[in-house]
């Protein structure tokens, strides 16, 4: 049980991201004390994110192997999640650049914190030990709490961050309680040992108590109903680029870990599958229902993120039976990637609008989206694309993602769940298309254009997201193949 330096290569993406954060923090020392120019930071952060993306994709072909005596693992599943996280970070950095610059709020710690949180996310996806999961979770969460509180003009961001912090700590405590029970049952914090205990049939009731508590802790992070209460306030209060990153990155990492715990730790899902199914029903229903009356686009997207957590839970539930497990894992990864690209794009557009609102002092309401197509046809077209992708209309990534998820659910004999998913997602069109209607059909009340100038970098990110969304919708083959190769660790 000796330390093997080669294991560090296995966590290369996380190392790169953490190194990037340290570089950024250190570089602050060399800045002019008066009016320092910090514009380079976004690009350095983006470069490290890109390096992380490259590293995780480069490792994709490597055979799966345990790292650090089984505390973590380097496998395709983790690499794909890391790639999604790094891509999300990359795009978010570019969006944040234009957002923060135009608000004159660029500070060194922003990008460092984003890199730290992404590093935590990558580790979370690799962790196979409950202690490592907990610490990575906290690395991710603490950084995200701070990012939410980053922009403190008015009360909302600080309040949102504080709520997130309090409730997030509560969820972490629940997770720890569950981890303690798992240790009590199996005498180890390794998921593999836990699985061995479950398989041996000597599992006590402690195992089930631990499963419930661990699932509850991560149900909070993935925003499953009834652990979703924090989502609307936090998404609404946080700066839009952060919200996009949160929605894409935190969700990807948390779902990866949830799957890891349930499948690797508790194995055949006779017991947990029923509960995940129940959570999925509840989450799809409540998320879609509560999104309907929202007039603030950010809040609507928050509820939509809850609804999407429900669809992702469908994929998790489908992993409860061994036959379509790899397919379902592939569907989950594909869904995470497509949702990430879409939601970052959507929040990038929101960021541009929000910037306009922040400068003019208006509240976020659908009416401020009216007539966007007159001033910025490309922005309007991109937003419409993201909306129909979220709604799951072809030929976009969202449609493909939903199709694969529901198909895996049907193969896992969860037909009612799949049908319920189809019905709720079709109902979801209502609130997504309302944005399109406002963007295209409602004439603008006042003629205040979006501020130009630094639109360019956010525009690049939006174009990139739109491209991915279309690409994944029209030619999903290569993405699906990637997702499948990542999912292969869950058996064939």
């Amino acid at each position: 049980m000796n330390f093997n330096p080669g294991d560090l290569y296995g966590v290369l993406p996380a190392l790169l991201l953490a190194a990037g954060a340290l570089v950024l923090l250190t570089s602050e020392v060399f800045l002019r004390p008066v009016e320092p120019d910090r514009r380079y930071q976004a690009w350095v952060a983006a470069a490290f994110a890109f390096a992380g993306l490259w590293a995780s994709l480069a490792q994709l072909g490597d055979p799966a192997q345990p790292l650090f005596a089984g505390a973590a693992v380097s496998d395709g599943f983790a690499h794909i999640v890391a790639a999604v996280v790094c891509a999300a970070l990359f795009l978010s950095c570019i969006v944040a650049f234009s957002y923060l610059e135009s608000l004159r709020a660029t500070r060194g710690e922003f990008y460092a914190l984003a890199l730290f949180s992404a590093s935590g996310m990558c580790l979370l996806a690799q962790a196979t030990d409950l202690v490592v999961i907990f610490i990575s979770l906290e690395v991710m969460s603490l950084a995200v709490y701070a990012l939410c509180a980053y922009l403190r003009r008015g009360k909302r961001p600080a309040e949102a961050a504080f709520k997130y912090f309090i409730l997030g700590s509560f969820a972490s405590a629940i997770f720890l309680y569950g981890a303690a029970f798992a240790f009590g049952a199996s005498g180890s914090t390794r998921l593999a040992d836990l699985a061995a205990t479950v398989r041996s049939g000597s599992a006590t009731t402690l195992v089930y108590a631990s499963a419930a508590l661990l699932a509850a802790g991560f149900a909070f992070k993935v925003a499953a109903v009834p652990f979703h209460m924090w989502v609307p306030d936090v998404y609404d209060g946080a700066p839009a680029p952060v919200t996009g990153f949160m929605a894409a990155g935190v969700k990807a990492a948390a779902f990866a870990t949830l799957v890891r715990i349930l499948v690797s730790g508790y194995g055949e899902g006779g017991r947990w599958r029923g509960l995940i199914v129940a959570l999925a029903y509840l989450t799809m229903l409540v998320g879609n229902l509560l999104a309907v009356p929202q007039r603030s686009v950010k809040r609507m997207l928050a509820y939509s993120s809850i609804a999407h957590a429900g669809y992702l839970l469908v994929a998790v539930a489908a992993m409860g039976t061994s036959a379509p497990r790899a397919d379902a894992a592939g569907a989950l990864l594909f869904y995470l990637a497509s949702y990430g690209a879409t939601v970052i794009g959507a929040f990038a557009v929101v960021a541009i609008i929000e910037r306009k609102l922040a400068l003019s002092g208006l509240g976020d309401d659908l009416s401020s989206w009216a007539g966007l197509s007159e001033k910025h046809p490309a922005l309007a077209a991109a937003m419409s694309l993201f909306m129909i992708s979220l709604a799951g209309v072809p030929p976009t990534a969202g449609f493909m993602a939903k199709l694969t998820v529901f198909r895996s659910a049907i193969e896992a004999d969860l037909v009612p769940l799949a049908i319920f998913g189809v019905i709720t997602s079709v109902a979801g069109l209502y609130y997504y298309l309302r944005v399109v209607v406002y963007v295209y059909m409602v004439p603008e009340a006042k003629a205040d254009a979006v501020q130009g100038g630094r639109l360019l970098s956010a525009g690049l990110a939006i174009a990139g997201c739109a491209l991915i969304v279309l690409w994944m919708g029209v030619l999903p083959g290569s993405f699906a193949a990637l997702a499948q190769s990542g999912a292969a660790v869950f058996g064939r």
Partner: protein
Amino acid sequence: MAEAVLFYLFAAGVLAGGSQVVLRRNPIYGAVSLVGCFFFLAGIYVLLSAHLIAILQVLVYAGAVMVLFVFVIMLLNLKEEELGELRFTFWKVVGLVAVLATAAVIAWRALGPAYPSTGPARDNAILLAAEGFGGVKAVGRTLYLAAVLPFELTSLLLLVAIVAAVVVAKGKI
């Protein structure tokens, strides 16, 4: 037998201290209750033969961390009227009931069947202590070999916590 008596004594102390931390409106009382809570916890560690952890608990938490807490509380210098009253709202009661019910369900359905009370408990602690469990060497081996990844990650976590605290505490942006 003596072990069991001590355990229940310490556990009751931990619970009493912890609930006082939550319920006291005056932060100084809360801080002192927390110190008490930490001491009782250290006692439980001792019962488990985790001597090193017990000592660290007293030194680091009860000693160093709490002193910082008390400094901060004194610097804030809150007045009595700023502290507010303890109020029980409907949702607080719901939350309390839910938490207690969860604990009860776990105790009843999970802990009960998992540890049936058949005869006197074995003195595991004494056996373990004979093997060097809980000593510096054993903790060190675990920390730097089996748990090297979480150990290193903790440094990352602390760094993130510091940076996050600075960001949140800094003036308006």
